[in-house]
């Protein structure tokens, strides 16, 4: 009985703190995972579009990157499902507003490998920061995603980095 009451009291304090501290500095894990998911989906679309507009060996590299970023999105979705008990939205509102305008719907020029390099660099930086802030499996997952994005833009899309 006493144990139960203590646990309830602690839970109560925790939830009050969470609700009351609207400006708590450490972002919840879910924010980091959702941001990473949005970025993975957007990068995958961007790389797919860039591959369609490219020729030669860049096509294979961009297609491989699109598949890797899609795999990242899948792993992140699974982790969000584990964490929250329900699936992440198929398309995030904020992400679709910005990325589809930039990557797919915009009537501007087709995206290039350089656009993908820029997007991957930003995603790698974001995942690196998130990995350091998270713990356990989530930190490891974000760390691998940061590593994959970095290898993709520094080596796969920059062949001179691998062979001199």
């Amino acid at each position: 009985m006493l144990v139960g009451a203590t646990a309830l009291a602690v839970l109560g304090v925790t939830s009050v703190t969470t609700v009351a501290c609207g400006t708590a500095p450490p972002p919840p894990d879910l924010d980091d995972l959702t941001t990473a998911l949005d970025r993975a989906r957007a990068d995958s679309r961007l790389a797919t579009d860039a591959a369609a507009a490219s020729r030669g060996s860049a096509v294979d590299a961009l297609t491989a990157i699109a598949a890797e970023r899609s795999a990242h999105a899948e792993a992140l979705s699974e982790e969000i499902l584990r964490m929250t008990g329900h699936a992440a939205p198929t398309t995030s509102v904020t992400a679709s507003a910005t990325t589809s305008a930039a990557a797919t719907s915009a009537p501007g020029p087709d995206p290039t490998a350089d656009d993908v390099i820029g997007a991957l660099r930003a995603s790698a930086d974001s995942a690196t920061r998130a990995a350091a802030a998270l713990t356990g499996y989530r930190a490891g997952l974000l760390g691998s995603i940061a590593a994959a994005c970095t290898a993709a833009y520094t080596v796969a899309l920059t062949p001179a980095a691998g062979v001199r």
Partner: protein
Amino acid sequence: MTSPAPATPTRPSGAADGALFDAIATEHATIYGYGIVSAHSKPEVNYLVSEAIAEHRTRREAAIVMLEEHGVDVPLPAAGYRLPMEVDTPTEAVNLAVTMEQDGATAWRAVVEQATDQTVRAFGVTALTESAVTAARWRSVRGDTAITVAFPGGTE
């Protein structure tokens, strides 16, 4: 019986320090292995051998300092290592390099997951990333079609 045997540091029981201990031991093995890679590589890839060895030495020294700051005895290099594969040709040397970088990525991802100290975790993320990049460079040298992997150091 009275002469003390040289103390062989044992792996710390804590998960965080244990993972860092393992990663340092992996770096010892990798630095040894790059000696074999260097001996059998073509001269054209000397730049990559040198850069990789320098990267691993720098990383190992920094990791040793971190583990010592935790009051833990660091692992010592072994007198010799059994290679995971036979290495007699330049192609086999590249294969060993790729394997070692992949093993390094696995060891550093474990550090990232187990770390309780944010400095160690951030160091692990950098090490994981560098391992993935160097692995990709070696796969590029090998002429692989797929030179990157989706989850370096992971099993997803």
